Each structure stands twice: as structure tokens, then as C-alpha cells.
């Protein structure tokens, strides 16, 4: 328990270190999510349009 607390506290710099990592996760995760959802949408739309063509 103490070890985890020590780790989370980051030597007193916790309120700088964790938001920095969090920003990276949020921005990069957001880009990943947006790219994936666009990709899946295009796949669905393309399949539907190709089916319609036949």
C-alpha cells in the first residue's frame, strides 16, 4: 500500500506528472478513437453502397 502511494505521489510532483501522462493518453486515445470510428463507418457505408449496386 505504502509502495503504491509512494509511486502515485511521484515525489511530490504528482499533480504535474499524472496530468501530463493523462493528456497524452486523452489526446492520442482520442485520435485513435476518432480514426477507428471513421474507418468503421466508411467500411459500413461502402459495403452498403456496393450491395446496392448489385
Amino acid at each position: 500500500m505504502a509502495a503504491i502511494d509512494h509511486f502515485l505521489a511521484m515525489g511530490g510532483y504528482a499533480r504535474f506528472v499524472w496530468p501530463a501522462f493523462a493528456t497524452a493518453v486523452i489526446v492520442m486515445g482520442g485520435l485513435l478513437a476518432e480514426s477507428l470510428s471513421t474507418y468503421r463507418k466508411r467500411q459500413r457505408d461502402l459495403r452498403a453502397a456496393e450491395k446496392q449496386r448489385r
Partner: protein
Amino acid sequence: MFRLANPNRFMNWSGKLLPWCAAATAILLGLGTWLALFVAPPDYQQGEAVRIMYVHVPAAWMASFVYAVMAISSAVALIWRHPLADIAARQSAPLGAGFTLVCLVSGSLWGKPMWGTFWVWDARLTSVLVLFFLYLGYIALVNAFDEPTRGNRAGAILALVGAVNLPIIKFSVDWWNTLHQPASVFRLGGPTIAASMLWPLLIMALGFTLFFVTLLLLRMRSALMAAKLRALRIQQSQSLAA
């Protein structure tokens, strides 16, 4: 090289490559994060705050790297009129802007314990801020036209103009900084970096790079599918009219 770049062939080989890139990205980012948070030693001066470096520095490298990719793709698009080059440039831009944002925020958070304020007009952060606006200008421009190709070509020119200007801007910001800053410059990360810190940094940087490549391939595939959709819909409306 151009055979590889044919749109259908691209869909083919990118589809095969994508899962590998995604896996490599996950492994490298996971390993890098673990090394950065658990294995890398704290700095004797900055303590645990130095761990921000493992996010800030790779993001900074990626911000510049992605702009270079954009500029080169734009040059290829303008000189050889290659359709994939247009798409590569356009899809890279949001990724580059994202890295730039991460760099700015993490740099700001790193600066607060080190310099005492959330923003410092030091040469590197200021240059990255200008780079952020170059990305925003590009994204605004390519999205400002109804017709996609017009936006792509305009964007290509702007990307090249920006690339030529970037060294000039960087130089002038450094110049400005030496005029206004006291002589002692606090070098983030120290003058030479210990091996125990270098490896996590490089692995994170590699992870970020592969993250970019994976997302770029994904976004380019989406863009090609969108183009195919547009063509199909035009065909359909034409056959309906006939």
C-alpha cells in the same frame, strides 16, 4: 515505388501491414510507459518530475517529424500529382496537431515545478506554439473548400510554404529569446542524458512513431474508401438519371 502507391495496391498492402503496426505500437508504448514510470531513475535535480520528459520529448520530436512528412507528401503531390500523397498529407495533419498539443501541455506542466510558472516563453516551447498554429492553419485551409481536391492542393502549397518558413521562424524565435532571456538557460533534461534515461526515451519515441504510422495508414484507408464511396454515389445518380 509508384506501383506500391497505386490506390488498390495500397489498400492491399496497408491492410496486411496494419495489424503488425498496431501490435508493435501497443508493445512499444506499453514497454516505454512501464520503463518511464517504474524503471527509469528519478533525476538528481528534478526528482520524479523528470518522468514528464518521456512524454514531452517524444511528442516534440513527433510534432516536427509529422510536419516533415506533411511537407514531403505535399511536394510529391504537387510535383507528381500523386493522389495518395495528397491524402497522406491531409490525414497526417490532425495527428501532428495532436502531438504538438501534447508537447505544449506536458511542457507547460513540466515547466511549473521547474520554472515556477505554467508558461514560459522559452525558445523551444514558443517555436512549438507557432508550429501548432501552422498545423491549425493547414487544417482550416484544407477543410475550407467544398471540393476536396481544391483543398488538398491549396494545403499542399501551404505545407511547403510552412516548411520553408519553419527554420526561419525557429531561428528568429531563438534570436528573440537570446535578446530577452538571461544568459543561464535551464535545459530541460540536462545537457547529457544518462543511458538509463535514454533507453526509455527512445522506446517511447519509437512507440509514438509507430502510433503515427498505424493511425496514418488507418486514416488513409478511410480516405480512400470515402473517395470510392463518392465515385459510387456519382455513378448511381448518373445511372438513375439515364
